[in-house]
């Protein structure tokens, strides 16, 4: 009843099929099969799964690009089926896609960032302010007047984030945004996401890279359109049998830790990052040395 108890994103019994013309007696191929999920404001959630597990489909329900075949999706207490609310939903949930070129609309950086708020009818003075702020948030202020085709792939993705941020969304959804980037651009993008989350923006990202997922505060694991596992990364990746059954993997630092644990009893194999692994090794050695 009280609005405070409703989570920011509330998904109930979501079912979706791309095949709208299946006959009545056959079950259509569900891309999403009875998914229920709640996401609170300020969370950093990573959705992982093999190719074809339904990640992109799920994300497209979050801003109403897709509407459930069965079940409901509420964003900020608005139902995504409500045509009157589409604008509100899409300016609350900003979306960034995988292809750097096919989401840039304008030929100049600042004009692309302005595209979203222009569509919302934001008055001109505020437009300038929003463009400036959005570019600062991703660190591209200096490229304000640059033609968009002169940007590198990494810069284009940062631009795409800025163009979503200029609508002042409460939440940023990214569909494999770093997939086509080289390692350095990817790490810069992830750092940007981290600081955006620190500043209060909810971040939901789909990825098939385990090292990216390890950075999130909560992981949702999809397989064949269903949620098979969710929780803190340490918890999720410790379920190695499930992880391997659905053809995923654990982050490298954890793999190394697991190898070590198989030879050294008492070594905890739940290290997600290089930092954690190094600290675990040092701590272990110190304790062992002191223990003698």
């Amino acid at each position: 009843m009280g609005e405070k108890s409703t989570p920011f994103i509330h998904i109930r019994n979501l079912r979706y099929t791309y095949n709208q013309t299946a006959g009545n007696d056959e079950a259509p191929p569900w891309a999403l099969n009875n998914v229920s999920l709640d996401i609170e404001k300020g969370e950093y959630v990573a959705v992982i799964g093999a190719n074809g597990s339904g990640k992109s489909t799920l994300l497209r329900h979050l801003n109403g690009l897709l509407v459930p075949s069965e079940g409901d999706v509420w964003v900020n207490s608005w139902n995504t089926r409500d045509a009157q609310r589409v604008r509100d939903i899409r300016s609350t949930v900003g979306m960034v896609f995988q292809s750097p070129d096919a989401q840039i609309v304008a030929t100049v950086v600042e004009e692309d960032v302005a595209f979203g708020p222009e569509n919302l009818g934001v008055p001109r003075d505020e437009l300038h302010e929003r463009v400036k702020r959005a570019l600062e948030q991703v660190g591209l202020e200096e490229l304000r007047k640059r033609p968009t085709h002169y940007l590198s792939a990494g810069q284009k993705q940062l631009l795409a984030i800025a163009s979503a941020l200029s609508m002042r969304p409460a939440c940023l959804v990214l569909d494999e945004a770093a997939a086509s980037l080289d390692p350095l651009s990817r790490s810069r993008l992830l750092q940007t996401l981290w600081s955006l989350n620190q500043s209060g923006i909810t971040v939901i990202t789909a990825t098939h890279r385990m090292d990216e997922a390890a950075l999130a505060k909560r992981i949702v694991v999809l397989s064949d359109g269903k949620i098979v596992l969710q929780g803190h990364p340490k918890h999720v990746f410790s379920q190695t049998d499930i992880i391997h059954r659905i053809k995923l993997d654990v982050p490298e630092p954890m793999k190394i830790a697991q190898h070590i644990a198989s030879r050294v009893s008492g070594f905890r194999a739940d290290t997600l990052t290089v930092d954690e692994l190094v600290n675990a090794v040092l701590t272990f050695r110190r304790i062992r040395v002191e223990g003698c």
Partner: protein
Amino acid sequence: MAQRNEFELMGKVVIGQYIPTGSVVHRLDARTKLMLGALLIVVAIFVSSIAALLLLFVTVLFGLCITKVEVKLAFISLRRVLPYLFVLAAIQMLAVPQFRLDAKVIWEWRFFVLTDRSLLSGLLLMGRFVVIVSLLALFSFTTSTTELMHGVEHMLQPLQRLRFPAHETALVINIAIRFVPILMGEAERIMRAQASRGADFGTGRHNFIRRFMRMLPLFVPLFILSLQHAQNMAEAMESRCYMGGSGRTRLIQLHYEKQDFVAFLIGIVAIAGALCMSLFKVDQTVWKGVMTILS
């Protein structure tokens, strides 16, 4: 010794180069340049006086000089067209029967006849070409596609009230132009991939159908890629609440400034002068004068 590379598409395409030098002409409103340019071209086509064309050319040359761009760059494109131009002019001057009626024959050989009328017509043809090409060069040096699109969109804006999709049109053209180099790069990549598997993109002289079939390994993937781009673009635009041109505000507003009025003035004067010269048959007077002096 360099050999021609079969697949380097990017190097072969010549688009009018935008050369930003910050000159006055660059700072003119895009609409000024569009309207003046269009007017000058129309006048150049309909005027039938060499003196008038000369006046127009001098005006364009003046414009080129103040752009601070090397003037000879404008004539590089003209140079490539020159051989075709000469052939056309020659045909006009020597082989079109209409100019032989009521005309004074200047020179004759076999069935080629040069009359005073055909000479004039040939010269007019070349003159018009020169004016138009240098005008286009002036335009493309000083106007980026972005500015051009803003100009077009602003000018179409009043039509929005008549339910004409002005913003949508400008946006579609803008995005299409933006994707030309992207698609060309992808075409190059696909051609390389297929060639690496032994594809031969029609270097032989086969009939049209066979040639077309050979290009399928290029056309089909390119088409699919274009559709994917279109789909992705549509999703991105929808996600940013694009719902057509109505109700939108604009970051970039175009304003007419002092230099636009000056440019219009110069343009109008030149056009008026050209029209007068054409109407009052200045050519005839000069021609008669030259003939009198010569004889």
